[in-house]
Every structure is written in C-alpha cells, then in structure tokens.
C-alpha cells in the first residue's frame, strides 16, 4: 500500500458506552455500524467489504443487509481491528472492494449474547497454562511484568503512575468511565488482584462498540467528514502462550508490527504528535513506548514520570483515558483507533492542538498479536 492511498471516511462508537444491559453483542456491532454509516453519509448498500472480530463477518453482513464481495474475519484479539484496517487498505488498493466497514461490539460487562474464543483443554493453553490457575488476562498478561521490573529497576509506583497520568486525560472526557483525579497512593491502596497488579492498574470491563469506514483516498472528499489517511500499517503474532514469549522485557510482535508501520509511512517516531497504546494493564504502555522506538529500552517509566505523555507533554498518550479509565470491552483496539481519528479530525474531548500524525498500536491476546496503524491528517 502506498502511504495515504486509503482513508478512514467514517468513524463512530456506540451511542452509549459503559453498562449497556439492553443490547446484545451483535446489536452493539450494529449500533456502532449504523452510527458510522451515518457519520460517513452512507447506507448499507454502499458497503462492499466487511471486516470484524468477535462475531463472524457473515453475521454482521447479514444483519446489516450488506452483500459484500470482500470479507475479513481475522480474530487475533484486541488488535484485530488494526489488522482489519491494514487488510482493508490492501484490498481497496488492489481493487477487491471499494468501501469497507470494520465493526466491533462487545458486551464485556453485561455479557449479553457474548461469544468467547474457544480454548479447549487440549489446546496449548489448556495443557500448559490453565492447569496452573490462570484465570484470564489479569493472571496471564501480567506475568512478564516482574521480570521487566527487575531488569530495569522499576517499582510498583512506576506502574501506578501509568494509571494516574491516564486518569488526568480522562478527567477531560465526559464519556470516560472514570473521571475523578487519581494519586499514586490511591492506586497502591486499591485491592490486590495479581501481585504486583492492583485493581487500578487493570483495565475496566465495560460494554460498547465502534466501527470504521475506509475508502480510496481519491474518494475521500465525497464524504462529509474530514478524512483521516492511512499512512502506514504493521502486524505480527508471537505465541498463544505468554509463558513462551521470547523475552519477558520486550514484545517481538510489537517490534515487528511497529517497524513495518513506521517504514511503510516513511516516518520516525519523532514525527508522531499523538499516540495510542492499547493499555489492558499498566505495563503495556511501557512495553509499547520502548518496542515502537519512542524511547530506549528501560526508559519508558522515566519518560512518563517526566510528564512527556501527560497533558501538555510532547507525546500525548492515551488521550481518551485508555483502557484503564475510558472503557475496555475486551477487545479495546477499536477505541484506540477511534481516538486517533478524533484527534486527527480535531474533535477529541481532550484535543491536542495541531495533531498531524497519530499512531494507534494494539495488542491481541497476552502479547500474542499486534497491529500498528500510522494515521495522518494529510496524505
């Protein structure tokens, strides 16, 4: 894909976020899709490509009355939507389809009509991790953290500060689940979930959804909203077993995906004015900042302590409040993309002045997969 040849021409989240017990997972997809089609000034009949995770693209296309000639059901966890953007951009460039709808919806809190990825007792996870008492992300995603902390001399306060700074951003966002300012002491006094992770270092569990429409950049002016251009994309996977990561202090999937996205965009991290790093847990922005090349290995905690990622800093990070304070339905990647689009359109609640390049970086599974999208306000 040539940088800037495809644009995001529609983007919206579900009408509500948080606790939505009256909508099923499928309807959360549909609600987000309908809001996004309205944002793009389109009807379902205008869509000829469908990509989704969590639900089958068959279900989404059928429900919305779309007859697609291109579908993508890539489901590698919370970053799947970054991969959908990448695959959709390639498909549009190749002429396989013209107008792609990417949807996400998840009843993470209310658990209405929820589908779950099947991991049977004979899978690698079922044989070599689950018997030791892993019980979802809080006990698996977190396992590399102590090794990282020992290697780079971090303390629990450093993890707590990630949550504190992101809460600063969330105080500006009326749609954020948590908006009350937070202190390091309060984070360290919250209940212990899985040492060294306390409750406020773990993401929220909420309901919601979001969707995107992509089209060729030449058509971008036919749509009512300011287009956001896809400048570079990357993706990778490492292992379904967090215990088998090559190195507990750096994610190979992050490095491969990030490098590809920056190379494709032809930019360096220094040119990025706004950054979203999927923060299911407080250590993820640390890994992301380092593995994407924004700071040297082991420097991320100090970078955050020096307030470079905070309001007024030179690299605003997770400006919606992130998975820690804004919302986290389970597959958060879509919300990172939505905030990048808002920032580049200039309509974010905590708008950073003059953002021209934004990066949305996602993780899937427990460091299992990764997707990175470089977006720009200009081609």
């Amino acid at each position, binding site marked *: 894909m040539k940088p800037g040849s495809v644009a995001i021409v529609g983007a919206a989240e579900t009408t509500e976020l948080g606790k939505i017990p009256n909508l099923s997972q499928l309807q959360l997809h549909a609600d987000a899709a309908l809001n996004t089609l309205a944002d793009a000034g389109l009807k379902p009949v205008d869509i000829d490509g469908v990509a989704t995770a969590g639900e089958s693209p068959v279900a989404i296309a059928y429900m919305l009355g779309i007859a697609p000639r291109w579908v993508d059901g890539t489901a590698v966890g919370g970053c799947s939507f970054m991969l959908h953007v990448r695959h959709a951009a390639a498909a549009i460039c190749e002429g396989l389809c013209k107008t792609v709808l990417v949807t996400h919806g998840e009843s993470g809190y209310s658990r209405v009509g929820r589908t779950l990825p099947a991991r*049977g*007792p004979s899978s690698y996870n079922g044989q*070599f991790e689950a018997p*030791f008492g892993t*019980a979802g992300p809080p006990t698996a995603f977190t*396992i590399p953290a102590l090794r990282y902390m020992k290697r780079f001399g971090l303390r629990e306060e450093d993890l707590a500060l990630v949550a504190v700074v992101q809460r600063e951003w969330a105080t500006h966002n009326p749609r954020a689940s948590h908006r009350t300012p937070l202190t390091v002491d309060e984070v360290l006094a919250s209940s212990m*979930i*899985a040492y060294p992770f306390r409750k406020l270092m773990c993401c929220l569990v909420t309901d919601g959804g979001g969707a995107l429409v992509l089209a060729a950049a030449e058509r971008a002016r036919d749509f009512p909203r300011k287009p956001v251009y896809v400048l570079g994309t990357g993706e990778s996977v490492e292992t379904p077993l967090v*215990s088998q990561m090559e190195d507990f202090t750096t994610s190979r999937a992050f490095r491969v995906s990030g490098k590809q996205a920056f190379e494709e965009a032809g930019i360096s991290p220094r040119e990025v004015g706004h950054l979203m790093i999927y923060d299911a847990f407080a250590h993820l922005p640390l890994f992301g900042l380092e593995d994407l090349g924004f700071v040297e290995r082991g420097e991320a905690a100090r970078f955050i302590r020096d307030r470079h990622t905070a309001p007024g800093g030179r690299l605003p990070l997770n400006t919606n409040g992130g998975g820690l304070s804004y919302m986290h339905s389970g597959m958060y990647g879509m919300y990172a993309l939505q905030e990048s689009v808002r920032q580049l359109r200039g309509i974010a609640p905590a708008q950073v002045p003059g953002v021209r390049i934004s990066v949305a970086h996602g993780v899937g599974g427990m460091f299992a997969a990764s997707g990175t999208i470089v977006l720009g306000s200009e081609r």
Partner: protein
Amino acid sequence: MPEASRALPEPTPETAHFWEGTRQGELRLQRCDACLHVYFPPRPFCPKCAHRRVTVIRASGRATLYSYVIHHRPVPGFEPPYSIAVVELEERPRMMTNIVNAPQTPEALRLDMPVRVVFRRISDTITLPLFEPVEKLA
C-alpha cells in the same frame, strides 16, 4: 484443596509423552536430532529448524524462577493467594507452573532463585509439574 476441580489438561498424541512422564515422576523435554535445540512445549518437529526427527529427553528438574504473579482471587482448585510462575529450566526452555512449599509472598519468591520440580498427582491421568524452592527460608 479441591485440586481435581482445576482446569485439567487433555493430552493430544503430540503431548502424551509429556503427561506420561509427569505420571512417572519425570519432566520430559524434546531435543532436535539435527540442530540439538531443546524445546518445550511438545511438538513432533523442531521449532527452530523444522526437522522431524526429535528425541524425548529427561530434564534435570532444576530451574530458576523467571517471573510470576501472586493471584488473590478465587479460581476453582486453588486457594488464594497463590503464585502463577514461569520457571527457566536448566536445559533452557521455560514453562508455566506454581511455586509450592513456600510462602506465597514477594519476599519468599525472589526472581532467579533456584527451584526444583515436584510432581503433584491431580487425577488418575494427570500429574502436574510444580516447583519448590531448593533452599528453605530460614
């Protein structure tokens, strides 16, 4: 502890030798006949060079504590707080396990401390490889 209520593994043809080993009190790894790479989890080919001839070997059971969390929430078959750990075997591969016969505290569970395998029979077919500190705390 009602350990039988744990999420128990279901061996496949490719992993049966591992679970047969733990039943017999052996920790089994595999070694590539071509490049001599020693690896885990089991598969009937080398993940490094894709060679199909590999040999099952018995690990020493000696390891060091690589990383862990101490889980504080209830999970079927476990009594919180309990450690979910990754150990690095003397032969190099890492594996997930629980550290047992030690206080489940950050003070007692120090990264890089020596640990050794102990086998915990959970059911007729499944024995789990767990690890305990080599040196008892004073």
